């Protein structure tokens, strides 16, 4: 009995906060847009009973999904999102791994402080931090001012409202999600394994490639998914830092919803995005499970 209750709680949570909302979105995605409140038809009229429900079902169709394939804006946006998510995940890994490595190698008494520094940015609003980057990256921003003053560049670099700014914003924002799992993996690494590798003929670099990297792989995979999955649907960073050339599905979704007020198409975009995300999420879960099994 107690066990059943314990199991029921997460399932109830999932049902109420994921499956039911998803059902609603799915329903809207199968509807047609209309100038009404809410802005789509059909709506379910329970007063008419079973016949009303049948009539409601008969009016649902896949028109919006077909539309997504017909207008190349959408698949271009999906592909561009995948590309941006992939590239920024790689950049985050390249920046995050050395930081995590440095933390794991730092003297014991320094580690809590370093950990604190990684987490500290979370104490301010995400939105404010992204706005701060606008201040840094704009033509009159701190970065250009500094570079001009140093004489590195002759005229301001156009950074804001480009994909470069989006990458900078994403790497900055998602860095802790990459660092923490890698740090956790490296922290558990037994130092004598590196010594054993050196003892058996490895140079420092070989020992790093042959022992440290393979043994931190679960952390690398976990960190990469923790960055890749949310970045794929990211909306705030591309809309604030990106320009007209930055095409991301989160932005498209927002415009369909608020600018076009086409709820059914926006919902269809959201459903497809979720289906795309299912693949990496499943892979991520598999990685976590494999890691848990290896630790037993």
């Amino acid at each position, binding site marked *: 009995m107690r066990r059943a209750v314990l199991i029921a709680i997460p399932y109830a949570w999932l049902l109420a906060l994921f499956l039911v909302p998803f059902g609603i979105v799915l329903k809207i995605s199968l509807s047609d847009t209309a100038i009404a409140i809410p802005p789509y038809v059909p709506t379910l009229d329970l007063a008419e009973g079973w016949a009303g429900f049948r009539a409601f079902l008969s009016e649902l169709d896949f028109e919006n999904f077909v539309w997504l394939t017909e207008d190349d804006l959408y698949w271009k946006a999906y592909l561009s999102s995948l590309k941006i998510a992939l590239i920024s995940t790689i950049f985050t890994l390249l920046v995050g791994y050395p930081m995590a490595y440095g933390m794991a190698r730092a003297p014991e008494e320094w580690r809590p402080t370093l950990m604190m520094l990684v987490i500290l940015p979370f104490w301010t609003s995400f939105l404010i931090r992204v706005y701060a980057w606008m201040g840094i990256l704009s033509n009159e921003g701190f970065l250009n001012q500094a570079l001009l003053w140093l004489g590195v560049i002759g005229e301001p670099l156009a950074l804001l409202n480009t994909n470069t700014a989006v990458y900078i914003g994403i790497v900055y924002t998602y860095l802790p999600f990459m660092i923490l799992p890698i740090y956790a993996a490296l922290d558990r690494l*037994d130092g004598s394994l590196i010594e054993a*590798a050196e*003892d*058996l*003929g490895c*140079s420092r670099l070989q020992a790093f490639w042959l022992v440290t990297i393979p*043994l931190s792989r679960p952390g690398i995979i976990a960190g990469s998914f923790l960055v890749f999955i949310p970045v794929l649907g990211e909306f705030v960073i591309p809309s604030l830092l990106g320009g007209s050339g930055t095409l991301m599905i989160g932005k498209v979704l927002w415009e369909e919803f608020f600018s076009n007020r086409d709820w059914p198409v926006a919902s269809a975009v959201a459903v497809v995005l979720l289906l795309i995300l299912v693949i990496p999420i499943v892979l991520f879960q598999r990685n976590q499970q494999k890691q848990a099994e*290896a630790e037993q």
Partner: protein
Amino acid sequence: MGDIVSSTVFEPWTDPQAEPLIRFRNVTKRFGSFTAIDDLTLDIYEKEFFALLGPSGCGKTTMMRMLAGFENPTEGSIELAGRDIANVPPNKRAVNMMFQSYALFPHLNIWDNIAFGLRRDKMPKVDLEARVEEMLKLTRLEKFAKRKPHQISGGQRQRVALARSLAKAPKLLLLDEPLGALDKKLRQDTQFELMDIQEKTGTTFVIVTHDQEEAMTVASRVAVMDEGHLMQVATPDRIYENPESVYVADFIGDVNIIQGRASAVGGETYSIDWAEGQGQLTATSATSFDNGQTCHLAIRPEKVTITADRPEVADNVVQGRVHDIAYLGNLSTYHVELPNGTIIKAQTANTRRISRRSFTWEDPVWLSWTATAGVLLAN
């Protein structure tokens, strides 16, 4: 006796012509203000099974890590086969180490763990496979080649670690507390296996241990260390029978230490005045003592005879009462309290059933030993 070199007994340390494989020359190692190794000089010969024995923090692990190349001496030099190895990194030394934690690579199976070092040497595939198979056979691990380290038992892991460190046929193999993680029974079996493998491969072994029994069993010579100093370097029997200091006598096995003042009786015989109301003790010693010099008589419990009646002929006799009995199955150690409160331990083999034991608690008994049974030590 140092000048008699037997051709059958393995004793290169007695041969002045023999070239040592490892030579520590006035080695000092400091970590900050802490001196781990203090001006230490030591020779280790080829094919030796050399044990570094001491309590934790005595510097034995530092000695081993300097041999492996993970630490460099602060002062002095270490030579391996006549070459100073101070600036040779660990991966360039013909020295391999078996780690206390075994340090098996968890992401590689047993076969790949053993092949790891050979692959770094770019060994041809055929030779590599033959060598790994040979190592698997030597350590009886053929059946487990495809398993991962977490899928085998502690004893098997220990053998994988040994096979991996032996695979490159090092000149010198270092073993850091190799049997520490095994239970007692398995440890004893493995000790003999280690000796067997050492003999088969002819590799020089240096073992670090805090377990004196282990050191005594496996080693050709034992170095007893304390606080960065070598207290004594000798064969196990000499360490046990002829300790050079109270520290060594006390560290190895069980011992009675009787403090007193020596006075020469003649020849190498001394009488020891040790407690009021007790007769003088007699002991022989090759090292000479001044009259009235403080000395310590170290005598092993098994060399003390315990009897109910006063023995007729004995160099040393004391009387006391049985204070405690430590029953070990095959042996019993009697703790005998003398009238002045001193406790002397006497050990006998239990050749009879326990129900027929001759002495029990509070029995008055006599303890006796010969003049040559103990060792007279200055400090």
